[in-house]
């Protein structure tokens, strides 16, 4: 790369704004510079574009994977600067540095191992029921969005109950504003949906009725927790949030790339003993279909359900009309 010239004021101010370091005087000065010169606006736009591209590229994993490149140099600096320390403090300081590096190195691996355990627990055909709470319904979440005909209306999820068992086995029961109940489910071989006392629609596509939220990948953000967890493993940066309790540990996943769908952030509370998810928060869900911004999925029960609970026949009277989709 070319030799770097001294940095002009417009560059400095632009960067201080973008890195949230500027004070009010600097903000005002940059605003003045942008108002007075197209060259300054050009330069600011260059910095803003670079800032945005770097954020996206970094989330996509394009940056250095090795933080030791930064902290490694710190180690050398620290030893040089601490040469006057006593024989007691030198090993202690070195231990702290080594511990920091060890944490940076191994923490993501352990978090990933914990996630693997959660996925393994999810793959056990164990009955679980969860309540869905809408934490943030988002703007423009009014009832008019439910009239658009796409399936199903993603709002009205607050208070819904989700039952899960094995792969493809789920039931979601929602109460709609008119008091009707909508139930969608899957028994592992087909999915189905019914509203009120209307016909039961059945499809061989397991996600057919679960595409609650617009997603470029057409994936089901929260009904299919296995897919969600698998995505969490592949597409998210995983980190520990809390391991101070014996009963519950907490992980967080931040989506690495915009090219992939799904919520931007996922928080998971789980039992370290058995990997059972106790609570899951999905933040910044894709909202193309007008669904909520954030939801919580909270474990209510692990009581066994009836063997045929995930078949539609368990949720309506005999003789209901069936509409089978190809």
């Amino acid at each position: 790369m070319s030799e770097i010239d001294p940095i002009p004021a417009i560059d400095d101010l632009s960067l201080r704004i973008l890195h949230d370091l500027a004070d009010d005087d600097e903000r005002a000065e940059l605003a003045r510079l942008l108002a007075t010169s197209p060259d300054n606006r050009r330069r600011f736009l260059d910095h803003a574009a670079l800032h945005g591209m770097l954020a996206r590229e970094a989330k996509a994993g394009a940056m250095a994977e090795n933080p030791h490149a930064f902290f490694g140099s710190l180690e050398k600096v620290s030893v040089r600067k601490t040469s006057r320390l006593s024989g007691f403090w030198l090993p202690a300081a070195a231990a702290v540095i080594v511990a920091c590096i060890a944490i940076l190195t191994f923490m993501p691996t352990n978090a990933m191992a914990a996630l693997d355990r959660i996925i393994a627990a999810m793959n056990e055909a164990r009955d679980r029921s969860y309540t869905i709470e809408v934490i943030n319904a988002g703007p423009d979440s009014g009832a008019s969005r439910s009239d658009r005909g796409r399936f199903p209306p993603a709002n009205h999820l607050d208070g819904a109950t989700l039952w899960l068992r094995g792969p493809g086995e789920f039931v979601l029961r929602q109460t709609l504003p008119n008091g009707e109940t909508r139930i969608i489910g899957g028994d592992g071989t087909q999915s189905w949906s019914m509203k009120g006392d209307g016909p039961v629609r059945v499809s061989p596509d397991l996600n057919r009725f679960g595409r609650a939220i617009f997603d470029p990948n057409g994936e089901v953000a929260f009904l299919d927790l296995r897919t969600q967890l698998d995505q969490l493993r592949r597409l998210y940066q995983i980190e520990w949030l809390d391991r101070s309790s014996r009963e519950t540990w907490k992980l967080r996943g931040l989506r690495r790339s915009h090219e992939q769908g799904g919520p931007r952030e996922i928080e998971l509370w789980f039992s370290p003993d058995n990997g059972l998810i106790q609570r899951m928060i999905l933040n910044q869900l894709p909202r193309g279909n007008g669904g909520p911004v954030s939801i919580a999925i909270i474990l209510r029960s692990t009581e066994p359900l009836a063997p045929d609970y995930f078949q539609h026949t368990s949720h309506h009277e005999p003789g209901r009309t069936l509409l089978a989709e190809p």
Partner: protein
Amino acid sequence: MPHPSSDPHLSFTRQFVAAQPALHGFLMSLAHDPHAADDLLQELAERMWRKFDEYDGNRPFVAWGIGYARLLAMEWRRKQQRLPLPLDDETLDRLASEAADDAPRHDERLDALRACLKGLTERQRAVLRMRYQESIPVAEIAIASNRTQMAVYKMLKHAHQALLICISETLASQTP
């Protein structure tokens, strides 16, 4: 309504995914905050999808999206109690127009950036990763690395400067 694909959902998805980086860049130029730009991008997808039946397939998708992105960013700015950068309407309009002019070359700049990142030092890439991938504020990077905030900021500044020069040279070399 001439869509490249007969399935509007697929057609929209395909085109939106391709246009996302340019639209994000445009939103970034008016919001000045990557997280806000992320949120606005999600809102933009929703808004464009609702209007997709009005889209003229003969028009560049990015240009069509920028019209909505501009409105969305302006609405967002009006609702903010505190903006990263206080700009008057005239300056903001100029900035938006100039950013819209840049948008078609966004993909080329992104390609150049990817190549230019390889020219940074390991330390520069590492500090960029902490700042952008981990979203760690400069002050916290400084504490974690036992450096001053100014020292960390200077590292970021020099990395930015080097990247801008490299991108500019790369684009210039590609211009016939």
